[in-house]
C-alpha cells in the first residue's frame, strides 16, 4: 500500500524560498556585475583587464593562490595524517586549532601578523621580512586556506582501514611505496577537492592580504585589492571586469577539477556475478 502524497502549499513555499534565495543572493549580483562591466561594450572591458596594473594584480593573485595550494596540499596532508593516525597529548587542541582560520576574520589575521612581525613586533627580528611583503602575503594566504585540505583529507583517511596498508606491508611494500600506491590513490579525491577549495579561497582573499601587503599597486596589490581600489577610484568597469575574470577563473578551476575527480571505477555500474 502506497500512500498518495498529500499536496500542500508547503513544498511550493520551500521552492519559492530556494528560488528567491538563489536568485537574490547569487544571480542578481552576477547580472549586476556583468551588465555593469559591459555597459559600454566589450572594448572597455578588454582594455580594463589588459591594463598593466590589472595584469600585475592577477599574476600576484595566481602566484599566491597556487603557491598556497601547493604548500597546503603537502602540509595539509601531513597534518591530516598526524591527526588521524597518531595519538599525542593535546591532540584535541590541535584538531580544534585547525579550524581557527575559519572563525578568525582575515583582517585580524593580517593585523596579528603585523603585530608579530612588524617594526615593533615581538618577532621583528625574524630573518624573512613578513610584514608588508610578499612572503607575508603568502603566509596569510596559506593560513586562511589552511583547513581545506586537512578537513577534506581527514575523513577519507579515517575511513581508510589500517588493514589496507598492512596488506601492502605483508606483500613486501615499504612504507613509502604503501603510501604512494595504496593510501594516496584512496585519498586523492579528498586532496583534489581540498586544493580546489584552497585555490578558490586564496583567489578571493582580501582582508588579510590587504592588511599585511599594504596594497602597493603593482607590487602587493592582488586582484581583489585591485577591485576594491577600482571601486574607490570610480573605475567601475575595471572593478567589474576583474570580478568577472576572477569568477570565470574560479568556475574554470571547478570544471577542471571535476574532470580530474572522475574515477574510472565509478564509470561502470555495480556488477555482481549472479553465480556467487
Amino acid at each position: 500500500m502506497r500512500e498518495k502524497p498529500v499536496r500542500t502549499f508547503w513544498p511550493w513555499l520551500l521552492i519559492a524560498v530556494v528560488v528567491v534565495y538563489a536568485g537574490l543572493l547569487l544571480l542578481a549580483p552576477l547580472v549586476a556585475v556583468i551588465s555593469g562591466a559591459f555597459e559600454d561594450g566589450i572594448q572597455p572591458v578588454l582594455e580594463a583587464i589588459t591594463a598593466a596594473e590589472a595584469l600585475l594584480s592577477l599574476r600576484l593573485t595566481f602566484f599566491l593562490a597556487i603557491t598556497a595550494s601547493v604548500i597546503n596540499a603537502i602540509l595539509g596532508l601531513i597534518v591530516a595524517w598526524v591527526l588521524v593516525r597518531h595519538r599525542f597529548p593535546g591532540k584535541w587542541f590541535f584538531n580544534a586549532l585547525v579550524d581557527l582560520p575559519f572563525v578568525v576574520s582575515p583582517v585580524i589575521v593580517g593585523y596579528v601578523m603585523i603585530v608579530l612581525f612588524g617594526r615593533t613586533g615581538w618577532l621583528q627580528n625574524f630573518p624573512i621580512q613578513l610584514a608588508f611583503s610578499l612572503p607575508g602575503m603568502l603566509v596569510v594566504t596559506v593560513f586562511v586556506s589552511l583547513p581545506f585540505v586537512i578537513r577534506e583529507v581527514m575523513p577519507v583517511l579515517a575511513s581508510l582501514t589500517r588493514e589496507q596498508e598492512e596488506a601492502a606491508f605483508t606483500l613486501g611494500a615499504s612504507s613509502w611505496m604503501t603510501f604512494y600506491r595504496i593510501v594516496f590513490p584512496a585519498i586523492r579525491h579528498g586532496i583534489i577537492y581540498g586544493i580546489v577549495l584552497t585555490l578558490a579561497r586564496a583567489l578571493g582573499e582580501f582582508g588579510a592580504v590587504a592588511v599585511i601587503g599594504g596594497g602597493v599597486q603593482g607590487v602587493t596589490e592582488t586582484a581583489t585589492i585591485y577591485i576594491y581600489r577600482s571601486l574607490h577610484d570610480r573605475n567601475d568597469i575595471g572593478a567589474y571586469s576583474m570580478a568577472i575574470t576572477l569568477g570565470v577563473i574560479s568556475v574554470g578551476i571547478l570544471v577542471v577539477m571535476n574532470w580530474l575527480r572522475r574515477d574510472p571505477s565509478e564509470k561502470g555500474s555495480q556488477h555482481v556475478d549472479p553465480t556467487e
Partner: protein
Amino acid sequence: MSILLNKVSKKYGAQNIVREFSLEIESGELFVLLGPSGSGKSTLLRMIAGLTPQDTGEIYLNDRNVTALSPQKRGIGFVFQNYSLFQHMTAAQNIAFGLEILRVPKAERDERVHELLGLIGMADLGNRMPSQLSGGQQQRVAVARALAQRPEVLLLDEPFGALDVKIRAQLRQNLRDIQQRLNVTAILVTHDQDEAFELADRIGVIDGGELLEVGTPYQLYRKPQHRFTATFLGSVNLLAAERNGTTIHLGDKRLPAPPQTDHLAGQSVEMMLRPESVEIALTPENLEGHLLGSGIVESIAFAGVLERVAIRVQDWEQTVHALVNPDKARELNIRPGDHVYVGVRDFHLLPLN
C-alpha cells in the same frame, strides 16, 4: 618444522592478550587456531605476520628466526577478515601488486596472475574492481593476492567471517583444495568449530591468551583434556562423578571407566557425554549402553537430521540432552512429560577443577 612459536607473549597495559604461547606446526599443515572472540588468536596471528610486535618470545618460520623482522621480510601471505583489497585496483592488479613489489618481469607477472585467477575460478573477472565483486569473489581474490609471492606461510584471519553460511561451505572446500595443491603451510584463525573441523589437519584451542590443547578434530571432539574444549567444540552434557579404581560412581550407578583416563584415578571427575551418545528408551532393558537413570521429557525440538530431546533426570536433578534420529523418536513416540530411561553408549572423563 615450518612454524615454531616459543613462549610468545603480548600485553596491552596490564592485560595479558597472549601468554607464553608455544606451538609447532609442520610443513604443509593447515592448522586452525580456534577460540572465542577476545581469546588473543588474532593478535597471535598478527604477531606471526609481524604486524603487531610481541613483548617476549621468539618466532621461527622455516627455521629462520623472524622475531625481529618487519612484515615485509617475513615471507608470509596474509588474508584479512574484511579482505582489505585495494579498492582502486582491479582484481588482477590486486593479485599482481606483490609481484610488482618483487620486480617480477611483466610477462611472468601476467602469467602468474592468470594462473592464480584460474586457481580461484575467476579467470574472466580479472578486470573487475573490488566494488564490482561479490563478497565471496573478493575473498578469493584476497587469497590469491596473499599467495602470489609463493609465501612459505599463509595466515588467514577469520577469512569466512563476513560471508553467508552457504558460500562459506563452498569457499572452505575451495581453500582446502588450493592449500593442498600448493602445499603451503597455513594457519587459519576462527571462532567457528564447524570451520575448524572441516578444514583443520590439527586444531589448537586458545582461550584467555593461552593454548589449552592441540589435536586432531576427532581427538578434541571426543577426548578433550579441558572442559573448555569440550564445551566450545559442540554441545555436551557434563555430569559430576567419582572415579574409583576402574569404576565410575555416578550417584548409585556404577560404570566402567573409559580407556586413557587412568591419570584421573581416584579423583572427582566430570562425565562428558556428547548428545549423540545419549540414548533414550521406555524401559531400561531396551538401552544398548549403560543406564544412567530415568527422567521426564522436557522438550523435543527439531534439529535438522536429528531431534534434540531434553530429559530432566530425577536422580540428580539435571537436564540431559540427547540427539535422537527421527525414526527412533517416532518408534518411542514420546511427548514432553513422558517418563523415559536414559543411557549412554560412549563417554569421556574430564578432571573436575
